[in-house]
């Protein structure tokens, strides 16, 4: 028996070792990469990670950039150009979870110099002293969409250079619906008619899920005067001390959610796993989603159109959150001068913005680049117009306290478990308590 027990311990010990080997970062053969990069100024292909581990910073390179896999090729191209022009070496590494891996690696002094990420990480990154201010000349900043520039600011300080904006809109099946509806009532009427005729199974596909989705529910609140998540402070930024999810406007939005839930237009059974499939199999003629859904719809051969979100009766048009993709410079960058140079001088270039557009298909943040793309790509123009009224997603850390309680509240309202007024009031209380916890 003792032998057996010892064997079991040995097995679990080995398993623990194997696990830690997977979880830990396996170093890339340093001798090879060092020799390769020291000679050539271009590194060619982005370094792909092993598993989900954070990339290992290469100490022999003059500038290290972390990005996700999608953007890596475009970033690599201009990083190479930058390297050749300045006689330095640049390495682009793919990070599977840039937000967390950047925070963790920077904490122990092994982070990259530049990262590519979303603007709503900003508050958290500033809070942890991981990003440095990026001082863009005012004439350069004026070339960008003002909302994109606003999104890169926290407490009035600017922390990066934007390259794309994204937001949700209404996707509709042109074969079933020739013209997009302007109002939600019209949308529901059209959809219900199609269901009755047997041409569709349900009216709308929108990500709700059992725990709710604050990002997709927010536009219902913002359609009404005074509805939303956070009020604004004197400087025009979001104020974590002003939670307005239970304001009169927000409650009106909640009532719409309740009504649509009752009509089965919105359902907690639709979530990220089936949202696209419902639209792509023509089960639903309408879908509220973002640019990430386009590729799948194209692949499924859907004749889709993109339109702004409809307006709600008694309020105005639903206004989505704007997400801005941007380049950050690490506050602990080992190559701060090159990092600042790359971000302030390269990213605002039109050709760079166009190349980044090609990989992400999100409207570019540089006006000049957007105009050129919008002239030939109707999708981009449509996404941009769907987001014209939108406000940037809050980048304050307090937003972390909102997703859970607010999302669940909207799911409960849609499922008919609680009335909008009391449920949103309870959510507001919970959010405030979470923020107070700090």
């Amino acid at each position, binding site marked *: 028996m003792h032998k057996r027990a010892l064997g079991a311990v040995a097995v679990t010990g080995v398993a623990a070792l194997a696990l830690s080997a997977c979880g830990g970062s396996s170093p890339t053969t340093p001798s090879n990469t060092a020799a390769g990069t020291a000679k050539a100024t271009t590194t060619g292909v982005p370094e792909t990670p092993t598993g989900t581990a954070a990339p290992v910073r290469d100490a022999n390179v003059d500038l290290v950039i972390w990005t996700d896999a999608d953007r890596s090729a475009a970033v690599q191209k201009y990083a190479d150009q930058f390297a050749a022009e300045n006689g330095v070496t640049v390495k682009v590494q793919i990070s599977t979870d840039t937000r967390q891996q950047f925070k963790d690696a920077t904490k122990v002094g092994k982070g990259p110099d530049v990262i590519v990420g979303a603007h709503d990480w900003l*508050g958290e990154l500033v809070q*942890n002293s991981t990003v440095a201010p990026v001082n863009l*000349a005012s004439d350069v900043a004026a070339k960008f969409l003002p909302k994109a520039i606003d999104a890169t600011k926290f407490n009035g300080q600017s922390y990066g250079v934007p390259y794309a904006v994204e937001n949700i809109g209404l996707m509709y099946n042109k074969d079933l619906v020739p013209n997009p509806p302007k109002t939600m009532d019209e949308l529901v009427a059209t959809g219900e008619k199609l269901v009755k005729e047997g041409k569709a199974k349900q009216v709308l596909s929108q990500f709700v899920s059992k725990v709710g989705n604050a990002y997709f529910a927010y536009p219902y609140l913002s359609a009404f005067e005074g509805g939303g998540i956070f009020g604004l402070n004197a400087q025009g930024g979001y104020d974590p001390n002003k939670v307005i999810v239970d304001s009169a406007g927000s409650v009106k939005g909640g009532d719409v959610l309740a009504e649509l839930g009752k009509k089965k237009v919105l359902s907690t059974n639709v979530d990220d*796993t089936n949202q696209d499939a419902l639209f792509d199999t023509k089960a639903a003629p309408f879908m509220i989603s973002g640019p990430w859904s386009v590729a799948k719809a194209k692949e499924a051969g859907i004749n889709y159109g993109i339109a702004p979100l409809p307006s709600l009766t008694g309020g105005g048009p639903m206004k989505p959150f704007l997400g801005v993709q941007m380049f950050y410079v690490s506050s602990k960058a080992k190559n701060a*001068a090159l990092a*600042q*140079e790359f971000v*302030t001088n390269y990213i605002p270039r039109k050709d760079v913005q166009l190349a980044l557009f090609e990989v992400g298909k999100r409207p570019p943040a540089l006006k000049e680049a957007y105009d050129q793309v919008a002239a030939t790509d109707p999708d981009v123009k449509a996404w941009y117009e769907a987001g014209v009224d939108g406000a940037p997603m809050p980048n304050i850390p307090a937003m972390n306290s909102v997703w859970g309680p607010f999302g669940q509240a909207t799911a409960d309202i849609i499922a008919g478990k609680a009335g909008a007024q009391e449920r949103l009031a309870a959510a507001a209380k919970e959010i405030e308590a*979470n923020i107070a916890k*700090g």
Partner: protein
Amino acid sequence: MTKPIALAIKWVLIAAAVVGAFVIATKLAEAGNTLAVVLAGMVGLGILAIYATRRGVPLKYLAPGVLLMILFQLWPVVYTANLSFTNYGDGHLYSKEESVTDIVAQSVREVPGAPRYKMSVAVKERASVETADLILLLTDPAGATFVGDTSGLKPLAPEGVTKAPSGKILTAPGYTLLTARQVNARSADLSKIAVPTSDGGGIKPVGLSEAFEGKPTMSYDAATDRITDSSTTPPTVYAPADARWTNVANPSQTLPQGWKEGVGLANYTRIFTDSTLREGFVSIFLWNLFFAIFSVLSTFLLGMLIALLFNDPRLRFKGVYRSLLILPYALPIFVTALVWKGMFNQDYGIINQLTGLNVDWLGTDLGAKTAILLTNLWLGFPYMFIVCTGALQSIPQDVREAATIDGANAFRTLRSIIMPLLLVAVGPLLLASFAFNFNNFGLIFLLTKGGPFNGADTSIGSSDLLITYAYRLAFSGSAPNYGFAAAVSVIIFIIVALMSIPGFRRTKALEEIN
């Protein structure tokens, strides 16, 4: 094996272990962790002392196990316990001094209307580019050239100066210009440069070729321990409170950067005084206990039954069946749990479609719990099947034959002979399985996220385990609070440990059968 070969192998292994300890120590030294270097050195010496000499024979057997236990069991526990007495978490990662430096450095704003310069970085001619004081060669928008250093801005005579089309100075007599790589190598010095201007600001570089005039809006007074923000009227004063810089006039407003500090037992007091925790704890604990016990029993029974079935010598193609049955175990839970989630969907899931039911599996308390138990049964039985198969094959045939000769029927043999012998082998594994399922975070998080949530309270879900609950408790605030999470982990650790003690006593009793 002949003695010289054995000796050679022994010494190669000892040398490898010592070299390993040395490599680890070097890495730790690079990271500047003195205490850990000493410990790694002591481990290396210990290996030498234990295995290179003839003394301490029992230690030769004990040392590897003890070492691994310290490394993988004790160290994480100590580290977690240590963390639970701090406020470590987002916004509280660094020291107070670092927070002050960061706040002041990040508050530099461009002076409105000030010119933006084109910049080259240089040193005095014949001075070392690696160490000499850096000098900024600046061109203002009108094309006038300047020399800037820590003493201030002086005009640079245009004679002999060549400029790029952008206005950036390329050569200047008396100065050596640095290349991009040379500038970059001195990033740290460059970030400290601020050429003082007459209005109290400083000209600071941006990247390699631009400079702007900026002014910090925050200032720190060490004597009073206050940070003052001069960008507001009147200036806002921040004082340290609760490991954050807090606005004296309006305590709800704090600066984002806080610092790490010891908080004593505060995290533990919060656990025991938090009202939602007190109310939710009992129901979560009972469900957690039920979940773990039911998971272990159901997977064990199913796994054992199949193992008994497949252990029959008359069955053909056993290899094929066995490989197929191991599949659920071999697939990653991240995939299978999500597939099950899809199958349990009320409107589109295959389970409701096949059975003709309309059960809201993931949206009701009972449905969610049933879904979780079913999924865990499917995920867990292959493991039990493997261990039972192994254990059954080690039960000698003659014991069974003896039972048959004594007139025992199949059920009696199973109950009195096979089961006790089987339990000796798998008993400890059942305990391990219990501990694992007690903290089965992945399954709950992927399948229900702890939901459904009732009564307008998203802090307690009806399918929550203690661990998923603790996760939400610690991370539902504005910022992940690792210190608090560590305190909750310590409490869970104590609970699991206390519950395991009777279990281990019981396995000891089983051992006596052997």
